[in-house]
Protein backbone atom coordinates (compact mmCIF):
# COMPACT_ATOMS: atom_id res chain seq x y z
CA UNK A 1 0.00 0.00 0.00
CA UNK A 2 1.13 3.55 -0.73
CA UNK A 3 2.69 5.50 2.09
CA UNK A 4 0.81 8.71 2.68
CA UNK A 5 2.67 11.96 2.99
CA UNK A 6 3.44 13.42 6.37
CA UNK A 7 1.23 16.43 7.04
CA UNK A 8 -0.21 18.42 9.86
CA UNK A 9 -2.83 15.72 10.25
CA UNK A 10 -0.13 13.34 11.47
CA UNK A 11 0.97 15.64 14.24
CA UNK A 12 -2.59 15.96 15.49
CA UNK A 13 -3.37 12.25 15.30
CA UNK A 14 -3.54 11.49 18.99
CA UNK A 15 -6.01 14.20 19.88
CA UNK A 16 -8.16 13.79 16.77
CA UNK A 17 -8.71 10.05 17.09
CA UNK A 18 -10.09 10.50 20.62
CA UNK A 19 -12.51 13.14 19.34
CA UNK A 20 -13.49 10.94 16.41
CA UNK A 21 -14.24 7.97 18.63
CA UNK A 22 -16.60 10.13 20.66
CA UNK A 23 -18.81 10.79 17.62
CA UNK A 24 -21.69 8.32 17.17
CA UNK A 25 -21.31 8.27 13.36
CA UNK A 26 -18.68 6.90 11.06
CA UNK A 27 -15.83 9.43 10.85
CA UNK A 28 -12.78 9.27 8.61
CA UNK A 29 -9.82 11.53 8.08
CA UNK A 30 -8.63 11.36 4.52
CA UNK A 31 -5.73 13.06 2.79
CA UNK A 32 -5.90 15.30 -0.25
CA UNK A 33 -5.60 12.29 -2.55
CA UNK A 34 -8.77 10.92 -0.88
CA UNK A 35 -6.84 8.09 0.80
CA UNK A 36 -7.81 6.89 4.24
CA UNK A 37 -5.66 8.23 7.03
CA UNK A 38 -7.76 7.36 10.03
CA UNK A 39 -11.20 5.97 10.87
CA UNK A 40 -13.15 5.94 14.11
CA UNK A 41 -14.54 2.75 15.67
CA UNK A 42 -18.05 3.26 14.29
CA UNK A 43 -16.74 3.44 10.74
CA UNK A 44 -14.53 0.40 11.33
CA UNK A 45 -17.67 -1.53 12.34
CA UNK A 46 -19.65 -0.18 9.39
CA UNK A 47 -17.02 -1.06 6.80
CA UNK A 48 -15.64 -4.18 8.47
CA UNK A 49 -12.02 -2.99 8.12
CA UNK A 50 -9.62 -1.81 10.79
CA UNK A 51 -7.79 1.43 10.18
CA UNK A 52 -4.33 -0.14 10.02
CA UNK A 53 -5.40 -2.47 7.20
CA UNK A 54 -6.83 0.24 4.95
CA UNK A 55 -4.57 3.20 5.72
CA UNK A 56 -3.44 4.73 2.43
CA UNK A 57 -6.25 3.16 0.38
CA UNK A 58 -8.60 5.36 -1.62
CA UNK A 59 -11.72 5.92 0.47
CA UNK A 60 -14.08 4.67 -2.28
CA UNK A 61 -12.79 1.13 -1.84
CA UNK A 62 -13.32 1.24 1.90
CA UNK A 63 -16.59 3.17 2.22
CA UNK A 64 -18.24 1.43 -0.78
CA UNK A 65 -20.61 4.34 -1.43
CA UNK A 66 -22.09 5.61 -4.66
CA UNK A 67 -20.93 9.15 -3.79
CA UNK A 68 -17.42 8.75 -5.23
CA UNK A 69 -17.91 11.42 -7.91
CA UNK A 70 -19.22 13.85 -5.31
CA UNK A 71 -16.24 13.17 -3.05
CA UNK A 72 -13.86 13.89 -5.89
CA UNK A 73 -15.46 17.32 -6.24
CA UNK A 74 -15.10 18.26 -2.58
CA UNK A 75 -11.47 19.31 -2.74
CA UNK A 76 -12.17 21.38 -5.86
CA UNK A 77 -15.09 23.09 -4.20
CA UNK A 78 -13.20 26.10 -2.92
CA UNK A 79 -13.09 25.02 0.71
CA UNK A 80 -16.83 24.54 1.09
CA UNK A 81 -18.34 21.70 3.10
CA UNK A 82 -20.39 19.36 0.95
CA UNK A 83 -23.19 17.07 2.03
CA UNK A 84 -23.75 14.02 -0.11
CA UNK A 85 -26.46 11.42 0.17
CA UNK A 86 -26.30 7.95 -1.25
CA UNK A 87 -25.94 4.34 -0.24
CA UNK A 88 -23.20 2.14 1.09
CA UNK A 89 -22.88 -1.61 1.51
CA UNK A 90 -21.87 -2.36 5.07
CA UNK A 91 -19.89 -5.24 6.52
CA UNK A 92 -23.11 -7.30 6.87
CA UNK A 93 -23.82 -6.94 3.13
CA UNK A 94 -26.69 -4.60 3.91
CA UNK A 95 -27.32 -1.65 1.62
CA UNK A 96 -27.79 1.37 3.89
CA UNK A 97 -28.72 4.95 3.06
CA UNK A 98 -25.94 7.26 4.15
CA UNK A 99 -25.33 10.97 4.42
CA UNK A 100 -21.72 11.99 4.02
CA UNK A 101 -20.59 15.40 5.23
CA UNK A 102 -17.22 16.21 3.75
CA UNK A 103 -15.37 19.18 5.28
CA UNK A 104 -11.98 20.29 4.00
CA UNK A 105 -9.27 20.52 6.65
CA UNK A 106 -7.11 23.59 6.33
CA UNK A 107 -3.46 23.46 7.23
CA UNK A 108 -1.57 26.26 8.95
CA UNK A 109 -0.47 27.49 5.53
CA UNK A 110 -4.09 27.84 4.47
CA UNK A 111 -3.99 25.01 1.93
CA UNK A 112 -6.21 21.94 2.08
CA UNK A 113 -4.59 19.17 4.10
CA UNK A 114 -7.33 16.67 3.60
CA UNK A 115 -10.95 16.02 4.43
CA UNK A 116 -12.99 15.08 7.42
CA UNK A 117 -15.75 12.71 6.38
CA UNK A 118 -18.72 12.03 8.62
CA UNK A 119 -20.84 9.12 7.39
CA UNK A 120 -24.27 8.79 8.99
CA UNK A 121 -26.58 5.83 8.54
CA UNK A 122 -29.88 7.51 7.66
CA UNK A 123 -31.84 4.40 6.60
CA UNK A 124 -34.27 4.75 9.50
CA UNK A 125 -34.74 8.48 8.88
CA UNK A 126 -35.46 7.84 5.22
CA UNK A 127 -38.10 5.24 6.07
CA UNK A 128 -39.73 7.55 8.62
CA UNK A 129 -39.63 10.46 6.19
CA UNK A 130 -41.53 8.47 3.57
CA UNK A 131 -44.12 7.33 6.11
CA UNK A 132 -44.66 10.73 7.71
CA UNK A 133 -44.47 13.15 4.85
CA UNK A 134 -45.60 11.36 1.76
CA UNK A 135 -44.68 13.44 -1.25
CA UNK A 136 -43.83 17.04 -0.39
CA UNK A 137 -45.93 18.50 -3.21
CA UNK A 138 -49.07 16.84 -1.84
CA UNK A 139 -48.38 18.29 1.59
CA UNK A 140 -47.97 21.84 0.37
CA UNK A 141 -50.25 22.30 -2.60
CA UNK A 142 -53.81 21.63 -1.65
CA UNK A 143 -56.50 21.40 -4.29
CA UNK A 144 -58.24 19.19 -6.80
CA UNK A 145 -59.06 21.75 -9.48
CA UNK A 146 -57.80 20.83 -12.96
CA UNK A 147 -55.63 23.96 -13.17
CA UNK A 148 -53.79 23.16 -9.94
CA UNK A 149 -53.56 19.47 -10.80
CA UNK A 150 -51.83 20.48 -14.05
CA UNK A 151 -49.15 22.24 -12.00
CA UNK A 152 -48.82 19.30 -9.57
CA UNK A 153 -48.39 16.91 -12.50
CA UNK A 154 -45.63 19.10 -13.92
CA UNK A 155 -43.89 19.41 -10.55
CA UNK A 156 -41.60 16.37 -10.98
CA UNK A 157 -40.55 17.74 -14.37
CA UNK A 158 -39.68 21.11 -12.82
CA UNK A 159 -37.88 19.35 -9.95
CA UNK A 160 -35.81 17.08 -12.20
CA UNK A 161 -34.07 19.87 -14.08
CA UNK A 162 -31.81 22.73 -13.03
CA UNK A 163 -33.27 25.11 -15.63
CA UNK A 164 -34.49 28.48 -14.37
CA UNK A 165 -38.20 28.60 -13.71
CA UNK A 166 -40.50 31.60 -13.76
CA UNK A 167 -43.61 31.30 -11.61
CA UNK A 168 -46.33 33.79 -12.40
CA UNK A 169 -49.67 34.32 -10.75
CA UNK A 170 -51.64 36.81 -8.73
CA UNK A 171 -50.61 37.69 -5.22
CA UNK A 172 -51.46 35.02 -2.65
CA UNK A 173 -51.82 32.16 -5.13
CA UNK A 174 -48.98 30.10 -3.65
CA UNK A 175 -45.97 30.88 -5.83
CA UNK A 176 -43.67 30.52 -2.82
CA UNK A 177 -45.20 27.18 -1.89
CA UNK A 178 -44.72 25.88 -5.41
CA UNK A 179 -41.09 27.00 -5.45
CA UNK A 180 -40.47 25.28 -2.12
CA UNK A 181 -42.25 22.11 -3.22
CA UNK A 182 -40.09 22.00 -6.36
CA UNK A 183 -36.96 22.46 -4.26
CA UNK A 184 -38.01 19.72 -1.82
CA UNK A 185 -38.71 17.31 -4.67
CA UNK A 186 -35.42 18.02 -6.41
CA UNK A 187 -31.98 16.54 -5.84
CA UNK A 188 -31.07 19.85 -4.18
CA UNK A 189 -33.52 19.19 -1.32
CA UNK A 190 -30.77 18.57 1.23
CA UNK A 191 -29.24 21.99 0.49
CA UNK A 192 -30.78 25.33 1.46
CA UNK A 193 -33.87 26.89 -0.05
CA UNK A 194 -33.50 30.64 0.24
CA UNK A 195 -36.21 33.15 -0.60
CA UNK A 196 -35.47 36.78 -1.34
CA UNK A 197 -38.21 39.32 -1.96
CA UNK A 198 -36.71 41.74 -4.48
CA UNK A 199 -39.49 44.23 -3.80
CA UNK A 200 -39.02 44.32 -0.04
CA UNK A 201 -35.35 45.27 0.10
CA UNK A 202 -34.18 48.82 -0.73
CA UNK A 203 -32.42 49.03 -4.07
CA UNK A 204 -29.15 50.10 -2.46
CA UNK A 205 -29.05 47.06 -0.19
CA UNK A 206 -30.30 44.48 -2.65
CA UNK A 207 -26.95 43.95 -4.38
CA UNK A 208 -25.22 43.33 -1.08
CA UNK A 209 -28.08 41.07 0.05
CA UNK A 210 -27.88 38.92 -3.10
CA UNK A 211 -24.18 38.88 -3.88
CA UNK A 212 -22.62 39.76 -0.52
CA UNK A 213 -19.86 42.23 0.22
CA UNK A 214 -16.42 42.33 1.73
CA UNK A 215 -15.44 44.34 4.74
CA UNK A 216 -14.98 48.02 3.87
CA UNK A 217 -16.88 47.79 0.58
CA UNK A 218 -19.03 50.70 1.69
CA UNK A 219 -19.64 52.80 4.78
CA UNK A 220 -20.99 50.54 7.49
CA UNK A 221 -19.69 47.30 5.93
CA UNK A 222 -17.85 46.24 9.08
CA UNK A 223 -17.58 42.59 8.20
CA UNK A 224 -17.77 40.27 5.23
CA UNK A 225 -21.27 39.19 4.20
CA UNK A 226 -21.68 36.04 2.12
CA UNK A 227 -24.87 37.06 0.28
CA UNK A 228 -27.87 34.89 -0.56
CA UNK A 229 -26.30 33.34 -3.65
CA UNK A 230 -23.48 31.91 -1.58
CA UNK A 231 -25.77 30.87 1.26
CA UNK A 232 -27.89 28.93 -1.21
CA UNK A 233 -24.83 27.03 -2.49
CA UNK A 234 -25.97 23.67 -3.85
CA UNK A 235 -29.61 24.54 -3.25
CA UNK A 236 -32.27 26.79 -4.70
CA UNK A 237 -32.59 30.57 -4.63
CA UNK A 238 -36.14 31.85 -5.05
CA UNK A 239 -36.29 35.49 -6.11
CA UNK A 240 -39.84 36.61 -5.60
CA UNK A 241 -41.20 39.84 -7.11
CA UNK A 242 -38.48 39.68 -9.75
CA UNK A 243 -40.35 42.40 -11.64
CA UNK A 244 -39.17 44.85 -8.97
CA UNK A 245 -35.48 44.06 -9.56
CA UNK A 246 -33.61 47.27 -10.50
CA UNK A 247 -32.19 47.37 -14.05
CA UNK A 248 -28.61 47.61 -12.77
CA UNK A 249 -28.97 44.35 -10.84
CA UNK A 250 -30.73 42.68 -13.75
CA UNK A 251 -27.42 42.86 -15.66
CA UNK A 252 -25.51 41.31 -12.78
CA UNK A 253 -28.11 38.56 -12.36
CA UNK A 254 -27.88 37.76 -16.06
CA UNK A 255 -24.11 37.43 -15.75
CA UNK A 256 -24.45 35.10 -12.77
CA UNK A 257 -26.94 32.95 -14.64
CA UNK A 258 -24.62 32.69 -17.63
CA UNK A 259 -21.25 32.30 -15.89
CA UNK A 260 -22.34 30.83 -12.54
CA UNK A 261 -19.86 33.15 -10.85
CA UNK A 262 -19.79 36.75 -9.61
CA UNK A 263 -17.79 39.33 -7.71
CA UNK A 264 -19.16 40.24 -4.25
CA UNK A 265 -19.44 43.98 -3.67
CA UNK A 266 -15.96 45.46 -3.24
CA UNK A 267 -14.19 42.16 -3.84
CA UNK A 268 -11.72 41.32 -6.59
CA UNK A 269 -12.12 37.59 -6.02
CA UNK A 270 -14.66 35.77 -8.15
CA UNK A 271 -17.05 33.45 -6.34
CA UNK A 272 -18.29 30.34 -8.09
CA UNK A 273 -21.77 29.15 -7.18
CA UNK A 274 -23.95 26.18 -7.99
CA UNK A 275 -27.47 27.45 -7.37
CA UNK A 276 -30.76 26.72 -9.08
CA UNK A 277 -32.73 29.90 -9.65
CA UNK A 278 -36.51 30.10 -9.43
CA UNK A 279 -38.18 33.45 -9.86
CA UNK A 280 -41.71 34.59 -9.16
CA UNK A 281 -43.76 37.63 -9.97
CA UNK A 282 -47.33 38.86 -9.93
CA UNK A 283 -46.53 41.48 -12.54
CA UNK A 284 -46.86 41.15 -16.28
CA UNK A 285 -43.20 40.96 -17.28
CA UNK A 286 -44.08 41.39 -20.95
CA UNK A 287 -45.60 44.75 -20.08
CA UNK A 288 -42.48 45.70 -18.11
CA UNK A 289 -40.40 44.73 -21.17
CA UNK A 290 -42.44 47.08 -23.35
CA UNK A 291 -42.04 49.86 -20.79
CA UNK A 292 -38.27 49.26 -20.73
CA UNK A 293 -38.30 48.39 -17.03
CA UNK A 294 -37.18 44.81 -17.54
CA UNK A 295 -34.35 43.58 -19.75
CA UNK A 296 -35.54 41.30 -22.52
CA UNK A 297 -32.38 39.13 -22.40
CA UNK A 298 -32.97 38.47 -18.69
CA UNK A 299 -36.65 37.77 -19.34
CA UNK A 300 -35.83 35.08 -21.87
CA UNK A 301 -33.14 33.67 -19.56
CA UNK A 302 -35.60 33.43 -16.66
CA UNK A 303 -38.48 32.18 -18.75
CA UNK A 304 -36.91 28.83 -19.67
CA UNK A 305 -39.63 27.02 -17.74
CA UNK A 306 -42.88 28.68 -16.86
CA UNK A 307 -45.58 27.85 -14.33
CA UNK A 308 -48.71 29.91 -13.83
CA UNK A 309 -50.47 29.59 -10.49
CA UNK A 310 -54.24 29.85 -10.96
CA UNK A 311 -56.14 32.43 -8.96
CA UNK A 312 -58.62 31.16 -6.37
CA UNK A 313 -61.47 32.29 -8.64
CA UNK A 314 -60.30 29.79 -11.22
CA UNK A 315 -60.03 26.92 -8.76
CA UNK A 316 -63.73 26.19 -8.25
CA UNK A 317 -64.42 23.82 -5.37
CA UNK A 318 -60.90 24.17 -3.99
CA UNK A 319 -62.29 27.08 -1.94
CA UNK A 320 -64.32 24.66 0.15
CA UNK A 321 -61.36 22.32 0.54
CA UNK A 322 -59.15 25.20 1.66
CA UNK A 323 -61.85 26.54 4.01
CA UNK A 324 -62.00 23.20 5.80
CA UNK A 325 -58.21 22.94 5.83
CA UNK A 326 -57.73 26.38 7.37
CA UNK A 327 -60.60 25.82 9.83
CA UNK A 328 -58.87 22.67 11.05
CA UNK A 329 -55.51 24.45 11.22
CA UNK A 330 -56.81 27.41 13.26
CA UNK A 331 -58.95 25.16 15.45
CA UNK A 332 -55.76 23.32 16.38
CA UNK A 333 -53.69 26.48 16.78
CA UNK A 334 -56.22 28.32 18.90
CA UNK A 335 -57.57 25.31 20.78
CA UNK A 336 -61.11 25.85 19.50
CA UNK A 337 -63.77 23.30 18.62
CA UNK A 338 -65.59 24.99 15.75
CA UNK A 339 -67.42 22.34 13.77
CA UNK A 340 -68.20 24.10 10.53
CA UNK A 341 -69.84 26.96 8.69
CA UNK A 342 -73.41 28.20 8.47
CA UNK A 343 -74.88 27.71 5.01
CA UNK A 344 -75.05 31.49 4.44
CA UNK A 345 -71.39 31.82 5.33
CA UNK A 346 -70.44 28.98 3.00
CA UNK A 347 -72.49 30.50 0.20
CA UNK A 348 -70.89 33.85 0.72
CA UNK A 349 -67.34 32.53 1.02
CA UNK A 350 -67.80 30.41 -2.10
CA UNK A 351 -68.99 33.37 -4.11
CA UNK A 352 -66.51 35.95 -2.90
CA UNK A 353 -63.96 37.11 -5.48
CA UNK A 354 -60.82 36.82 -3.32
CA UNK A 355 -58.60 39.47 -4.85
CA UNK A 356 -55.96 38.32 -2.34
CA UNK A 357 -56.49 34.66 -3.28
CA UNK A 358 -55.55 31.85 -0.86
CA UNK A 359 -53.74 34.27 1.46
CA UNK A 360 -56.93 36.31 1.80
CA UNK A 361 -59.06 33.23 2.40
CA UNK A 362 -56.63 32.14 5.09
CA UNK A 363 -56.78 35.53 6.79
CA UNK A 364 -60.59 35.56 6.60
CA UNK A 365 -60.70 32.15 8.25
CA UNK A 366 -58.19 33.20 10.92
CA UNK A 367 -60.37 36.23 11.68
CA UNK A 368 -63.54 34.14 11.79
CA UNK A 369 -62.10 31.44 14.04
CA UNK A 370 -60.75 34.08 16.43
CA UNK A 371 -64.06 35.94 16.59
CA UNK A 372 -66.41 32.96 16.66
CA UNK A 373 -67.42 31.94 20.19
CA UNK A 374 -69.89 29.21 19.16
CA UNK A 375 -69.75 25.93 17.23
CA UNK A 376 -70.53 27.26 13.78
CA UNK A 377 -69.01 30.18 11.87
CA UNK A 378 -71.80 32.62 11.00
CA UNK A 379 -71.89 35.60 8.66
CA UNK A 380 -71.19 37.99 11.50
CA UNK A 381 -67.89 36.25 12.18
CA UNK A 382 -66.56 37.14 8.75
CA UNK A 383 -64.48 40.33 8.46
CA UNK A 384 -66.52 43.52 8.16
CA UNK A 385 -64.81 44.61 4.95
CA UNK A 386 -66.30 41.61 3.16
CA UNK A 387 -69.81 42.36 4.32
CA UNK A 388 -70.09 46.12 4.34
CA UNK A 389 -72.50 47.66 1.85
CA UNK A 390 -70.96 49.03 -1.30
CA UNK A 391 -68.21 46.43 -1.10
CA UNK A 392 -67.23 44.61 -4.27
CA UNK A 393 -69.96 42.14 -5.09
CA UNK A 394 -69.06 38.51 -4.77
CA UNK A 395 -69.32 37.09 -8.24
CA UNK A 396 -70.78 33.68 -8.97
CA UNK A 397 -68.05 31.33 -10.05
CA UNK A 398 -68.53 28.42 -12.39
CA UNK A 399 -67.59 24.97 -11.19
CA UNK A 400 -68.21 25.50 -7.48
CA UNK A 401 -70.35 23.29 -5.39
CA UNK A 402 -74.00 23.98 -6.19
CA UNK A 403 -75.54 23.62 -2.76
CA UNK A 404 -74.77 23.48 0.92
CA UNK A 405 -77.09 22.52 3.72
CA UNK A 406 -76.45 23.24 7.33
CA UNK A 407 -79.36 21.64 9.12
CA UNK A 408 -78.22 22.95 12.51
CA UNK A 409 -78.54 26.56 11.44
CA UNK A 410 -81.10 26.83 8.70
CA UNK A 411 -83.20 23.68 8.62
CA UNK A 412 -84.65 23.05 5.22
CA UNK A 413 -83.48 26.39 3.90
CA UNK A 414 -83.81 26.54 0.13
CA UNK A 415 -80.82 27.44 -2.03
CA UNK A 416 -80.45 31.14 -2.61
CA UNK A 417 -78.58 32.94 -5.29
CA UNK A 418 -77.55 36.08 -3.50
CA UNK A 419 -75.49 38.73 -5.17
CA UNK A 420 -74.52 40.67 -2.04
CA UNK A 421 -74.83 40.87 1.71
CA UNK A 422 -77.62 43.43 1.26
CA UNK A 423 -79.74 40.85 -0.47
CA UNK A 424 -78.90 38.17 2.08
CA UNK A 425 -79.91 40.49 4.92
CA UNK A 426 -83.11 41.54 3.20
CA UNK A 427 -83.99 37.95 2.58
CA UNK A 428 -83.30 36.98 6.20
CA UNK A 429 -85.53 39.80 7.47
CA UNK A 430 -88.37 38.77 5.16
CA UNK A 431 -88.00 35.12 6.17
CA UNK A 432 -88.12 36.00 9.86
CA UNK A 433 -91.15 38.24 9.35
CA UNK A 434 -92.97 35.49 7.43
CA UNK A 435 -92.14 32.90 10.06
CA UNK A 436 -93.31 35.11 12.92
CA UNK A 437 -96.40 36.18 10.94
CA UNK A 438 -95.31 39.82 10.98
CA UNK A 439 -94.50 40.00 14.70
CA UNK A 440 -91.51 42.35 14.74
CA UNK A 441 -90.51 41.59 18.34
CA UNK A 442 -90.35 37.84 17.66
CA UNK A 443 -88.61 38.42 14.31
CA UNK A 444 -85.99 40.59 16.05
CA UNK A 445 -85.34 37.81 18.61
CA UNK A 446 -85.11 35.28 15.79
CA UNK A 447 -82.59 37.43 13.98
CA UNK A 448 -80.60 38.10 17.12
CA UNK A 449 -81.17 41.87 16.90
CA UNK A 450 -82.90 44.41 19.10
CA UNK A 451 -86.37 45.57 17.99
CA UNK A 452 -85.00 48.99 17.09
CA UNK A 453 -82.26 47.52 14.87
CA UNK A 454 -84.87 45.49 13.03
CA UNK A 455 -87.06 48.57 12.62
CA UNK A 456 -84.08 50.59 11.32
CA UNK A 457 -83.11 47.89 8.82
CA UNK A 458 -86.72 47.49 7.61
CA UNK A 459 -86.79 51.22 7.01
CA UNK A 460 -83.35 51.12 5.33
CA UNK A 461 -84.31 48.37 2.92
CA UNK A 462 -87.80 49.82 2.32
CA UNK A 463 -89.56 46.69 3.54
CA UNK A 464 -92.26 48.44 5.50
Amino acid at each position, binding site marked *: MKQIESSELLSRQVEIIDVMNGIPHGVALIDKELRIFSMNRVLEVMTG*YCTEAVQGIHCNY*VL*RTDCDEGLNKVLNNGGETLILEGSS*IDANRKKVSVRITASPLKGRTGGDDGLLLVMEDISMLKEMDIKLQGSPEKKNLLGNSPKLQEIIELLPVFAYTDATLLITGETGTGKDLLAEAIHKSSKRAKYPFIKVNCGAIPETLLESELFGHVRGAFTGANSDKPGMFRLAQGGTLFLTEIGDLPLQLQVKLLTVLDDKEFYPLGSSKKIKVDVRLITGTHRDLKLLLDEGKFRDDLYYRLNVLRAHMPSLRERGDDVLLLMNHFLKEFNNNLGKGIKGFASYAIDYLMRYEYPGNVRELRNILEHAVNICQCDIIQMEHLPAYMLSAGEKKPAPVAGRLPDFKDEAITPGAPRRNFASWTEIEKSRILEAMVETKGNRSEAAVKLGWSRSTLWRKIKYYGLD
Partner: protein
Amino acid sequence: MKILVTLTADDIAPRFDLCTEVLIAEFAEGSAGAVPRNVLLPGPSADELCSLILKENIDVVVCGGIEDSFFQYLVWKKVGVIDRIIGTSAKALQLAFEERLQPGAVI
Protein backbone atom coordinates in the same frame (compact mmCIF):
# COMPACT_ATOMS: atom_id res chain seq x y z
CA MET B 1 -11.99 -23.40 -12.31
CA LYS B 2 -13.63 -20.27 -13.74
CA ILE B 3 -13.21 -17.05 -11.76
CA LEU B 4 -14.92 -13.71 -12.29
CA VAL B 5 -13.55 -10.50 -10.76
CA THR B 6 -15.52 -7.25 -10.75
CA LEU B 7 -13.31 -4.44 -12.05
CA THR B 8 -12.71 -0.74 -11.82
CA ALA B 9 -9.54 0.05 -13.78
CA ASP B 10 -7.03 -2.58 -12.54
CA ASP B 11 -8.59 -2.90 -9.11
CA ILE B 12 -11.54 -4.83 -7.73
CA ALA B 13 -14.69 -2.71 -8.00
CA PRO B 14 -15.83 -1.49 -4.58
CA ARG B 15 -19.48 -2.29 -5.37
CA PHE B 16 -20.91 -5.36 -7.16
CA ASP B 17 -24.06 -3.45 -8.19
CA LEU B 18 -22.15 -0.49 -9.63
CA CYS B 19 -19.53 -2.40 -11.57
CA THR B 20 -19.45 -2.02 -15.37
CA GLU B 21 -16.53 -4.27 -16.23
CA VAL B 22 -15.53 -7.78 -15.20
CA LEU B 23 -12.54 -10.01 -15.72
CA ILE B 24 -13.11 -13.69 -16.41
CA ALA B 25 -10.33 -16.26 -16.19
CA GLU B 26 -10.55 -20.01 -16.66
CA PHE B 27 -7.87 -22.16 -15.13
CA ALA B 28 -7.57 -25.55 -16.74
CA GLU B 29 -6.83 -28.42 -14.38
CA GLY B 30 -3.16 -28.63 -13.61
CA SER B 31 -2.31 -25.31 -15.28
CA ALA B 32 -0.47 -22.59 -13.41
CA GLY B 33 -2.22 -19.63 -15.03
CA ALA B 34 -4.83 -18.49 -17.49
CA VAL B 35 -5.37 -15.74 -20.03
CA PRO B 36 -8.11 -13.59 -18.58
CA ARG B 37 -10.58 -11.69 -20.74
CA ASN B 38 -12.30 -8.46 -19.92
CA VAL B 39 -16.04 -8.10 -20.47
CA LEU B 40 -17.63 -4.68 -20.58
CA LEU B 41 -21.18 -4.58 -19.25
CA PRO B 42 -23.88 -2.39 -20.83
CA GLY B 43 -24.45 -0.64 -17.50
CA PRO B 44 -24.28 -1.16 -13.75
CA SER B 45 -26.83 -3.80 -12.76
CA ALA B 46 -26.51 -6.48 -10.11
CA ASP B 47 -29.26 -8.56 -11.78
CA GLU B 48 -27.55 -8.50 -15.17
CA LEU B 49 -24.25 -9.38 -13.58
CA CYS B 50 -25.80 -12.39 -11.80
CA SER B 51 -27.23 -13.55 -15.15
CA LEU B 52 -23.80 -13.25 -16.76
CA ILE B 53 -22.19 -15.20 -13.90
CA LEU B 54 -24.66 -18.06 -14.35
CA LYS B 55 -24.44 -17.97 -18.14
CA GLU B 56 -20.65 -18.15 -18.01
CA ASN B 57 -20.76 -21.01 -15.47
CA ILE B 58 -18.51 -19.12 -13.07
CA ASP B 59 -17.26 -21.07 -10.08
CA VAL B 60 -15.97 -18.21 -7.94
CA VAL B 61 -16.80 -14.51 -7.90
CA VAL B 62 -14.32 -12.07 -6.38
CA CYS B 63 -15.85 -8.68 -5.62
CA GLY B 64 -16.03 -5.72 -3.26
CA GLY B 65 -19.27 -4.99 -1.41
CA ILE B 66 -22.25 -7.07 -2.48
CA GLU B 67 -25.82 -6.94 -1.19
CA ASP B 68 -26.89 -9.96 0.82
CA SER B 69 -29.75 -10.87 -1.54
CA PHE B 70 -27.35 -11.23 -4.50
CA PHE B 71 -24.79 -12.98 -2.33
CA GLN B 72 -27.35 -15.55 -1.14
CA TYR B 73 -28.67 -16.02 -4.68
CA LEU B 74 -25.23 -16.80 -6.08
CA VAL B 75 -24.43 -19.15 -3.19
CA TRP B 76 -27.77 -20.89 -3.78
CA LYS B 77 -26.74 -21.28 -7.43
CA LYS B 78 -23.55 -22.94 -6.16
CA VAL B 79 -21.26 -20.04 -7.05
CA GLY B 80 -18.60 -19.24 -4.48
CA VAL B 81 -18.47 -15.56 -3.55
CA ILE B 82 -15.42 -13.95 -1.95
CA ASP B 83 -16.50 -10.42 -1.12
CA ARG B 84 -15.20 -7.22 0.51
CA ILE B 85 -11.85 -7.64 -1.23
CA ILE B 86 -9.65 -4.58 -1.69
CA GLY B 87 -6.71 -4.76 -4.06
CA THR B 88 -5.61 -5.36 -7.62
CA SER B 89 -7.50 -7.78 -9.80
CA ALA B 90 -4.40 -9.69 -10.90
CA LYS B 91 -3.33 -10.47 -7.35
CA ALA B 92 -6.88 -11.34 -6.31
CA LEU B 93 -7.23 -13.69 -9.26
CA GLN B 94 -4.01 -15.50 -8.41
CA LEU B 95 -4.93 -15.83 -4.72
CA ALA B 96 -8.43 -17.02 -5.58
CA PHE B 97 -7.02 -19.68 -7.89
CA GLU B 98 -4.67 -20.82 -5.15
CA GLU B 99 -7.69 -20.84 -2.77
CA ARG B 100 -5.86 -18.49 -0.44
CA LEU B 101 -8.25 -15.54 -0.73
CA GLN B 102 -10.48 -14.82 2.27
CA PRO B 103 -13.51 -12.47 2.42
CA GLY B 104 -12.58 -9.00 3.67
CA ALA B 105 -8.93 -9.33 2.61
CA VAL B 106 -6.91 -6.24 1.77
CA ILE B 107 -4.26 -7.39 -0.68
